[in-house]
């Protein structure tokens, strides 16, 4: 699916109320991105136009859930 990982991750940031417009939001987004990478997803492979394997999207969902950030729906 085109851009699935990229889109899901950006939607997740929005659900947390995070944006790159403030130093605080930018730094929190960086921390989440680093955790996703450390848990095995190389985000350089997942841009808006990449054709993403659905298994990778499921992996992302599991990783984000494990971060246990309460504001995320």
């Amino acid at each position: 699916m085109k851009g699935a990982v990229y889109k899901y991750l950006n939607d997740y940031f929005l659900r947390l109320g995070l944006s790159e417009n403030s130093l605080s939001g930018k730094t929190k987004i960086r921390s989440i991105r680093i955790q996703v990478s450390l848990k095995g997803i190389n985000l350089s492979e997942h841009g808006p136009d990449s054709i993403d394997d659905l298994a990778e999207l499921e992996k992302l969902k599991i990783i984000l859930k494990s971060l246990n950030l309460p504001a995320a729906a």
Partner: protein
Amino acid sequence: MYKNQYISSQLFHNSSEIPSTIQDKNPGLILCFYGADFDYTTLFHTLKKTGIPFLGCMDIARLSNSEYHFETNSVAVMTISKEILEKVGIIAYDMRKTTSNHSMYQSSKDEYQRILKKLGFDLSSPDMERDFSINLLFGLQSANSVLSAQNEVSLFQQTVGGSSGGKLDFVSSSVISSKGMGSIGATAVIRLKPEYYFLIDRASSFDPMEGKLAVTKLASPRYILELNNRPAAEEYARVIGKSTSDLGAAVYAMYTLGIEPGDGEKLITSIMKDDGNTGLLTYNDLLEGTHLNIYKAKLQYQDRLAKLQTIDKEKLIGYISFDCVLCYLARDANKEIETIAALYETTFPGTPKIGFGTFSENFCGANVNQTETYLAILKR
């Protein structure tokens, strides 16, 4: 000595000179990085007597203001004034080589949680401009278990630091702190006063290469057996255009591995050596299934310049660098020592600067290699 109203930095060759030099600066925290032949036991006891919280470690070489120092008998010292520190807490935890990863994870987690709560930090939502932690971790142990514990305690508490260094025989590498010394990890938890803020960032100097290496079989987190379902050393050599007989420390440093968090940054994992067969040992933990990028090292000047230019030099009052031992050695090999030192000095003239050659670097909860991570302290 470089100093301003808030921070000072100086190189010493004798511990006894330190207390009288720093006492008029109202220090709330001392950082120090010392060579492998410096008497760190005396340094520990000298600093302990001052009653000031401190954190320090052994290194292979160090940055003190405008110069890199490769001699093994000096110590670079930075004092940070109480004027800018609202809260400081120091913790230490066992990282001896005989200590298991689980034990390091648990003890560092318990201590980190305790100190953050004691100081009244909000674990789920720290002040992203004033709250941070500096780690100095025993360099002959993996930093990953400590960092993953800290991430679990507070994902957003920003961390920076490195693993202690030493001589390249990897025999000795100590950490000292006001809570103990030896084969330990030590962390300073800090909140700046509202008039000050910090930046944590990283710099590395690599160009991406074609191809990917999927980690398909691990013997342990730092021991790769297969890449792309082929023997690891053979596949690594193939993608970088070498034969396995070419592989060695210089090639591993030149052609390194990593992943990216999708914002243009790189989290580098370096190869340490082969296993005598077709496996590869790394300086960082890996997970099976990870797709690694391949990078080729280049000169450091341009990337460092680009990063330093993002810092507001009018507001900068102190700069602390955690710079991989391999970056120090690469600068030496590429005759970049003076140009890079001059770069820091011309970009931030007169600003107190300190740093050391690390056995691995921390960056916001990640353990990375062949990278400079840094902490910049600024006045609003």
